[in-house]
Protein backbone atom coordinates (compact mmCIF):
# COMPACT_ATOMS: atom_id res chain seq x y z
CA UNK A 1 0.00 0.00 0.00
CA UNK A 2 2.80 2.41 0.93
CA UNK A 3 4.54 1.55 -2.35
CA UNK A 4 1.36 2.27 -4.29
CA UNK A 5 0.95 5.60 -2.51
CA UNK A 6 4.55 6.55 -3.41
CA UNK A 7 3.84 5.71 -7.05
CA UNK A 8 0.63 7.70 -6.94
CA UNK A 9 2.58 10.62 -5.44
CA UNK A 10 5.09 10.44 -8.30
CA UNK A 11 2.30 10.55 -10.87
CA UNK A 12 0.72 13.44 -9.02
CA UNK A 13 3.95 15.47 -9.07
CA UNK A 14 4.39 14.69 -12.76
CA UNK A 15 0.84 15.88 -13.44
CA UNK A 16 1.50 19.09 -11.52
CA UNK A 17 4.64 19.65 -13.60
CA UNK A 18 2.70 19.11 -16.80
CA UNK A 19 -0.04 21.49 -15.65
CA UNK A 20 2.60 24.15 -14.84
CA UNK A 21 4.39 23.68 -18.18
CA UNK A 22 1.19 23.67 -20.23
CA UNK A 23 -1.33 25.76 -18.28
CA UNK A 24 -4.97 24.98 -19.10
CA UNK A 25 -6.27 27.78 -21.33
CA UNK A 26 -9.40 28.33 -19.27
CA UNK A 27 -10.08 31.64 -21.01
CA UNK A 28 -10.67 29.74 -24.24
CA UNK A 29 -13.98 28.51 -22.89
CA UNK A 30 -15.44 32.01 -22.81
CA UNK A 31 -13.80 32.86 -26.15
CA UNK A 32 -15.55 29.99 -27.97
CA UNK A 33 -18.08 31.29 -30.49
CA UNK A 34 -21.72 30.54 -29.76
CA UNK A 35 -22.04 28.30 -32.82
CA UNK A 36 -19.17 26.02 -31.74
CA UNK A 37 -20.49 22.48 -31.24
CA UNK A 38 -19.49 21.28 -27.78
CA UNK A 39 -21.44 18.01 -27.58
CA UNK A 40 -21.25 16.22 -30.90
CA UNK A 41 -23.56 13.33 -30.01
CA UNK A 42 -26.45 15.69 -29.25
CA UNK A 43 -25.29 18.67 -31.36
CA UNK A 44 -25.29 21.07 -28.41
CA UNK A 45 -23.49 24.36 -29.09
CA UNK A 46 -21.61 26.64 -26.71
CA UNK A 47 -24.39 29.17 -27.27
CA UNK A 48 -27.07 26.73 -26.15
CA UNK A 49 -25.08 25.93 -23.00
CA UNK A 50 -24.71 29.64 -22.26
CA UNK A 51 -28.46 30.06 -22.79
CA UNK A 52 -29.36 27.39 -20.21
CA UNK A 53 -26.99 29.07 -17.76
CA UNK A 54 -28.32 32.57 -18.39
CA UNK A 55 -32.03 31.88 -18.93
CA UNK A 56 -32.75 28.62 -17.14
CA UNK A 57 -30.31 29.19 -14.29
CA UNK A 58 -28.28 25.98 -14.69
CA UNK A 59 -25.24 26.12 -12.39
CA UNK A 60 -24.36 22.45 -12.33
CA UNK A 61 -23.41 19.89 -14.98
CA UNK A 62 -26.43 17.59 -14.53
CA UNK A 63 -28.86 20.50 -14.49
CA UNK A 64 -27.38 21.79 -17.76
CA UNK A 65 -27.71 18.25 -19.13
CA UNK A 66 -31.38 18.07 -18.16
CA UNK A 67 -32.11 21.33 -19.96
CA UNK A 68 -29.89 21.01 -23.04
CA UNK A 69 -29.07 17.27 -23.41
CA UNK A 70 -25.34 18.07 -23.22
CA UNK A 71 -23.52 14.79 -22.49
CA UNK A 72 -26.71 12.76 -22.95
CA UNK A 73 -25.66 10.99 -26.14
CA UNK A 74 -23.65 7.94 -27.01
CA UNK A 75 -20.38 9.14 -25.48
CA UNK A 76 -22.21 10.03 -22.21
CA UNK A 77 -19.97 13.06 -21.79
CA UNK A 78 -16.70 11.22 -22.23
CA UNK A 79 -15.76 13.62 -25.02
CA UNK A 80 -17.68 16.75 -24.10
CA UNK A 81 -18.03 16.57 -20.30
CA UNK A 82 -14.99 18.64 -19.43
CA UNK A 83 -15.49 21.17 -22.23
CA UNK A 84 -19.14 21.56 -21.30
CA UNK A 85 -18.26 22.10 -17.65
CA UNK A 86 -15.66 24.74 -18.63
CA UNK A 87 -18.27 26.66 -20.62
CA UNK A 88 -20.85 26.43 -17.83
CA UNK A 89 -18.25 27.62 -15.28
CA UNK A 90 -17.18 30.53 -17.49
CA UNK A 91 -20.75 31.55 -18.31
CA UNK A 92 -21.91 31.33 -14.68
CA UNK A 93 -18.64 32.83 -13.36
CA UNK A 94 -18.24 29.98 -10.90
CA UNK A 95 -15.32 27.59 -10.31
CA UNK A 96 -15.16 24.31 -12.24
CA UNK A 97 -15.37 22.40 -8.96
CA UNK A 98 -18.89 23.61 -8.25
CA UNK A 99 -20.09 22.69 -11.75
CA UNK A 100 -19.37 19.09 -10.80
CA UNK A 101 -19.46 16.17 -13.18
CA UNK A 102 -22.10 14.22 -15.05
CA UNK A 103 -23.58 11.30 -13.13
CA UNK A 104 -22.95 7.90 -14.67
CA UNK A 105 -26.03 6.32 -16.23
CA UNK A 106 -26.73 2.70 -17.10
CA UNK A 107 -25.52 1.18 -19.35
CA UNK A 108 -22.18 2.49 -18.15
CA UNK A 109 -20.44 1.21 -21.26
CA UNK A 110 -22.47 0.86 -24.47
CA UNK A 111 -22.67 -2.80 -25.44
CA UNK A 112 -24.06 -4.47 -28.52
CA UNK A 113 -27.25 -6.32 -27.76
CA UNK A 114 -25.61 -9.58 -28.92
CA UNK A 115 -22.49 -9.20 -26.77
CA UNK A 116 -22.03 -12.64 -25.24
CA UNK A 117 -22.11 -13.03 -21.48
CA UNK A 118 -18.75 -13.87 -19.93
CA UNK A 119 -18.42 -17.58 -19.03
CA UNK A 120 -18.99 -18.18 -15.34
Amino acid at each position, binding site marked *: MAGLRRRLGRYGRFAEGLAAAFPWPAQQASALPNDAVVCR*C*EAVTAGELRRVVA*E*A*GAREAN*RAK*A*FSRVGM*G*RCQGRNCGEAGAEIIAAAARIPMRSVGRLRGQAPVKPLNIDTPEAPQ
Partner: protein
Amino acid sequence: MTASAAVNASDVLIVGGGLVGASAGFFLRRRGRSVTLLESGLVGRQASGTNFGNVRRQGRPLHQLPLANRANAIWRQMNELLGADVEYLESGHVRVCYRGSPEHVGELEAYAQKAHETGLELELLSGDAMRWRFAFLGPEVLAASYSACDGHANPRVVAPAFACATVRGGATVFENARVAAVEKNGEDFRALCDDGRVFRAPVLLIAAGAWGNLLSSQFHEPVPLLSRAPTMSVTEPVPYGLKPAVGV
Protein backbone atom coordinates in the same frame (compact mmCIF):
# COMPACT_ATOMS: atom_id res chain seq x y z
CA MET B 1 -42.96 45.33 10.50
CA THR B 2 -39.31 44.86 9.71
CA ALA B 3 -37.94 44.95 6.17
CA SER B 4 -37.14 41.26 6.06
CA ALA B 5 -40.56 40.26 7.34
CA ALA B 6 -42.11 42.36 4.56
CA VAL B 7 -40.02 40.55 1.93
CA ASN B 8 -41.14 37.16 3.22
CA ALA B 9 -44.85 37.92 3.16
CA SER B 10 -47.08 37.33 0.16
CA ASP B 11 -50.72 36.66 -0.76
CA VAL B 12 -49.98 33.02 -1.44
CA LEU B 13 -47.12 30.84 -0.24
CA ILE B 14 -46.46 27.73 -2.31
CA VAL B 15 -44.37 24.87 -0.94
CA GLY B 16 -42.98 22.74 -3.74
CA GLY B 17 -41.54 23.70 -7.12
CA GLY B 18 -42.79 20.83 -9.25
CA LEU B 19 -45.24 21.17 -12.09
CA VAL B 20 -48.18 21.70 -9.71
CA GLY B 21 -46.52 24.38 -7.57
CA ALA B 22 -44.83 26.20 -10.44
CA SER B 23 -47.95 26.29 -12.63
CA ALA B 24 -50.12 27.38 -9.70
CA GLY B 25 -47.67 30.21 -9.06
CA PHE B 26 -47.75 31.22 -12.71
CA PHE B 27 -51.53 31.49 -12.93
CA LEU B 28 -51.87 33.14 -9.50
CA ARG B 29 -49.46 35.85 -10.69
CA ARG B 30 -51.58 36.34 -13.81
CA ARG B 31 -54.54 36.95 -11.49
CA GLY B 32 -52.55 39.56 -9.63
CA ARG B 33 -51.73 37.66 -6.44
CA SER B 34 -48.28 38.08 -4.94
CA VAL B 35 -46.59 34.70 -4.80
CA THR B 36 -43.64 33.17 -2.99
CA LEU B 37 -42.60 29.65 -3.97
CA LEU B 38 -40.27 27.53 -1.84
CA GLU B 39 -38.51 24.54 -3.39
CA SER B 40 -36.44 22.20 -1.25
CA GLY B 41 -34.01 21.36 -4.06
CA LEU B 42 -34.16 22.61 -7.62
CA VAL B 43 -37.38 23.33 -9.48
CA GLY B 44 -38.76 20.31 -11.33
CA ARG B 45 -36.01 17.93 -10.37
CA GLN B 46 -38.09 15.24 -8.69
CA ALA B 47 -41.16 13.47 -10.09
CA SER B 48 -42.10 16.44 -12.30
CA GLY B 49 -38.79 16.22 -14.12
CA THR B 50 -38.23 12.49 -14.29
CA ASN B 51 -41.46 11.00 -15.60
CA PHE B 52 -42.55 9.58 -18.97
CA GLY B 53 -43.82 12.98 -20.13
CA ASN B 54 -47.26 11.66 -21.06
CA VAL B 55 -49.86 14.40 -21.33
CA ARG B 56 -52.92 12.23 -21.36
CA ARG B 57 -56.65 12.54 -20.76
CA GLN B 58 -57.85 9.14 -22.00
CA GLY B 59 -58.17 6.66 -19.16
CA ARG B 60 -58.40 9.21 -16.38
CA PRO B 61 -61.38 8.84 -14.05
CA LEU B 62 -64.38 10.45 -15.75
CA HIS B 63 -64.83 13.03 -13.01
CA GLN B 64 -61.34 14.35 -13.76
CA LEU B 65 -62.00 14.91 -17.46
CA PRO B 66 -63.48 18.43 -17.30
CA LEU B 67 -60.32 19.55 -15.51
CA ALA B 68 -58.09 17.54 -17.86
CA ASN B 69 -59.81 19.14 -20.87
CA ARG B 70 -59.06 22.59 -19.47
CA ALA B 71 -55.45 21.50 -18.96
CA ASN B 72 -55.30 20.33 -22.58
CA ALA B 73 -56.33 23.81 -23.73
CA ILE B 74 -53.46 25.22 -21.68
CA TRP B 75 -50.95 22.69 -23.04
CA ARG B 76 -51.90 23.73 -26.57
CA GLN B 77 -50.82 27.31 -25.90
CA MET B 78 -48.03 26.50 -23.45
CA ASN B 79 -45.12 27.75 -25.55
CA GLU B 80 -46.77 31.15 -26.02
CA LEU B 81 -47.77 31.34 -22.35
CA LEU B 82 -44.30 30.52 -21.05
CA GLY B 83 -42.09 31.92 -23.79
CA ALA B 84 -40.28 28.58 -23.94
CA ASP B 85 -40.56 25.39 -25.96
CA VAL B 86 -41.83 22.60 -23.69
CA GLU B 87 -41.85 20.16 -26.64
CA TYR B 88 -45.54 19.38 -26.37
CA LEU B 89 -46.64 17.13 -29.23
CA GLU B 90 -50.09 15.65 -29.75
CA SER B 91 -48.88 12.29 -30.97
CA GLY B 92 -51.95 10.45 -29.77
CA HIS B 93 -52.70 7.88 -27.09
CA VAL B 94 -53.94 4.31 -27.59
CA ARG B 95 -55.63 2.22 -24.95
CA VAL B 96 -56.05 -1.45 -25.71
CA CYS B 97 -57.91 -4.46 -24.36
CA TYR B 98 -57.06 -8.09 -24.89
CA ARG B 99 -58.82 -11.18 -26.26
CA GLY B 100 -58.54 -12.72 -22.80
CA SER B 101 -60.96 -10.16 -21.36
CA PRO B 102 -63.56 -9.30 -24.03
CA GLU B 103 -65.80 -7.65 -21.43
CA HIS B 104 -63.35 -4.73 -21.45
CA VAL B 105 -64.51 -3.74 -24.96
CA GLY B 106 -67.82 -2.64 -23.49
CA GLU B 107 -65.97 -0.66 -20.83
CA LEU B 108 -63.93 1.14 -23.50
CA GLU B 109 -67.15 1.96 -25.39
CA ALA B 110 -68.94 3.20 -22.28
CA TYR B 111 -65.93 5.30 -21.34
CA ALA B 112 -65.74 6.82 -24.84
CA GLN B 113 -69.43 7.78 -24.70
CA LYS B 114 -69.05 9.50 -21.31
CA ALA B 115 -65.78 11.15 -22.39
CA HIS B 116 -67.54 12.55 -25.48
CA GLU B 117 -70.05 14.28 -23.18
CA THR B 118 -67.17 16.13 -21.51
CA GLY B 119 -65.55 17.10 -24.83
CA LEU B 120 -62.89 14.39 -25.20
CA GLU B 121 -63.24 12.58 -28.54
CA LEU B 122 -62.14 8.94 -28.60
CA GLU B 123 -62.16 6.64 -31.61
CA LEU B 124 -62.86 2.93 -31.11
CA LEU B 125 -61.17 0.50 -33.44
CA SER B 126 -61.03 -3.24 -33.85
CA GLY B 127 -60.32 -5.90 -36.47
CA ASP B 128 -58.66 -4.89 -39.74
CA ALA B 129 -59.28 -1.17 -39.22
CA MET B 130 -57.31 -1.32 -35.96
CA ARG B 131 -54.46 -3.40 -37.44
CA TRP B 132 -54.22 -1.18 -40.52
CA ARG B 133 -53.92 1.90 -38.32
CA PHE B 134 -51.76 0.41 -35.55
CA ALA B 135 -49.76 -2.36 -37.19
CA PHE B 136 -47.60 -2.71 -34.08
CA LEU B 137 -50.42 -4.18 -31.98
CA GLY B 138 -50.07 -7.93 -31.46
CA PRO B 139 -52.68 -10.59 -32.26
CA GLU B 140 -53.80 -10.77 -28.63
CA VAL B 141 -55.19 -7.23 -28.81
CA LEU B 142 -58.95 -7.23 -29.33
CA ALA B 143 -59.85 -3.55 -29.51
CA ALA B 144 -58.29 -0.15 -29.17
CA SER B 145 -59.46 3.30 -28.13
CA TYR B 146 -57.56 6.14 -29.80
CA SER B 147 -57.29 9.68 -28.48
CA ALA B 148 -55.82 11.91 -31.19
CA CYS B 149 -55.39 14.96 -28.96
CA ASP B 150 -53.34 13.42 -26.17
CA GLY B 151 -49.57 13.52 -26.38
CA HIS B 152 -46.36 14.15 -24.57
CA ALA B 153 -44.04 16.95 -23.48
CA ASN B 154 -40.47 17.17 -22.23
CA PRO B 155 -40.74 16.74 -18.44
CA ARG B 156 -37.21 18.02 -17.86
CA VAL B 157 -38.10 21.51 -19.07
CA VAL B 158 -41.79 22.04 -18.24
CA ALA B 159 -41.67 22.86 -14.51
CA PRO B 160 -38.50 25.01 -14.83
CA ALA B 161 -40.15 26.87 -17.74
CA PHE B 162 -43.19 27.55 -15.53
CA ALA B 163 -40.94 28.73 -12.70
CA CYS B 164 -38.93 31.06 -15.00
CA ALA B 165 -42.13 32.55 -16.41
CA THR B 166 -43.53 32.92 -12.89
CA VAL B 167 -40.42 34.83 -11.79
CA ARG B 168 -40.64 37.04 -14.89
CA GLY B 169 -44.24 37.69 -13.86
CA GLY B 170 -43.08 39.02 -10.51
CA ALA B 171 -43.14 36.01 -8.16
CA THR B 172 -40.28 35.13 -5.85
CA VAL B 173 -38.90 31.61 -6.13
CA PHE B 174 -36.44 30.27 -3.57
CA GLU B 175 -34.62 27.07 -4.50
CA ASN B 176 -32.77 25.08 -1.83
CA ALA B 177 -35.36 26.26 0.68
CA ARG B 178 -36.52 23.20 2.60
CA VAL B 179 -39.62 23.77 4.70
CA ALA B 180 -39.38 21.94 8.02
CA ALA B 181 -42.51 23.19 9.73
CA VAL B 182 -45.81 24.81 8.79
CA GLU B 183 -48.34 26.32 11.13
CA LYS B 184 -51.34 28.64 11.27
CA ASN B 185 -50.52 31.79 13.17
CA GLY B 186 -53.45 34.19 13.52
CA GLU B 187 -54.55 35.22 10.03
CA ASP B 188 -51.44 33.84 8.38
CA PHE B 189 -49.81 30.54 7.69
CA ARG B 190 -46.12 30.41 8.53
CA ALA B 191 -43.53 28.17 6.92
CA LEU B 192 -40.24 27.69 8.71
CA CYS B 193 -37.26 26.59 6.62
CA ASP B 194 -34.59 24.36 8.12
CA ASP B 195 -32.07 27.20 7.65
CA GLY B 196 -34.20 29.47 9.86
CA ARG B 197 -35.93 31.54 7.19
CA VAL B 198 -39.61 32.24 7.87
CA PHE B 199 -42.26 32.92 5.24
CA ARG B 200 -45.88 33.80 5.77
CA ALA B 201 -49.07 34.26 3.79
CA PRO B 202 -52.82 34.07 4.37
CA VAL B 203 -52.98 31.22 1.84
CA LEU B 204 -50.63 28.23 1.89
CA LEU B 205 -50.51 25.79 -1.01
CA ILE B 206 -48.74 22.52 -0.30
CA ALA B 207 -47.55 21.12 -3.62
CA ALA B 208 -44.71 19.06 -2.22
CA GLY B 209 -45.54 15.83 -4.04
CA ALA B 210 -44.09 12.82 -2.27
CA TRP B 211 -43.21 15.03 0.71
CA GLY B 212 -46.71 16.51 1.02
CA ASN B 213 -47.75 14.27 3.86
CA LEU B 214 -44.90 15.57 6.05
CA LEU B 215 -46.47 19.02 5.85
CA SER B 216 -50.20 18.26 5.77
CA SER B 217 -49.78 16.01 8.84
CA GLN B 218 -48.73 19.09 10.78
CA PHE B 219 -52.33 20.32 10.35
CA HIS B 220 -53.63 16.90 11.45
CA GLU B 221 -54.63 16.15 7.86
CA PRO B 222 -52.42 13.20 6.93
CA VAL B 223 -52.36 12.16 3.27
CA PRO B 224 -50.66 8.77 3.22
CA LEU B 225 -48.61 8.42 0.05
CA LEU B 226 -46.74 5.55 -1.53
CA SER B 227 -43.75 6.52 -3.69
CA ARG B 228 -43.21 4.31 -6.72
CA ALA B 229 -40.66 4.96 -9.45
CA PRO B 230 -41.29 3.62 -12.96
CA THR B 231 -38.36 2.19 -14.89
CA MET B 232 -37.44 4.51 -17.71
CA SER B 233 -34.62 4.88 -20.20
CA VAL B 234 -33.83 8.08 -22.07
CA THR B 235 -32.37 7.48 -25.51
CA GLU B 236 -30.78 9.78 -28.02
CA PRO B 237 -33.43 11.46 -30.19
CA VAL B 238 -34.64 8.90 -32.72
CA PRO B 239 -37.55 8.80 -35.17
CA TYR B 240 -40.80 7.55 -33.68
CA GLY B 241 -41.01 3.79 -33.43
CA LEU B 242 -44.60 3.97 -32.17
CA LYS B 243 -46.12 7.38 -32.58
CA PRO B 244 -48.92 7.22 -30.01
CA ALA B 245 -48.28 6.37 -26.37
CA VAL B 246 -49.84 2.99 -25.54
CA GLY B 247 -51.58 1.98 -22.34
CA VAL B 248 -54.00 -0.61 -21.05
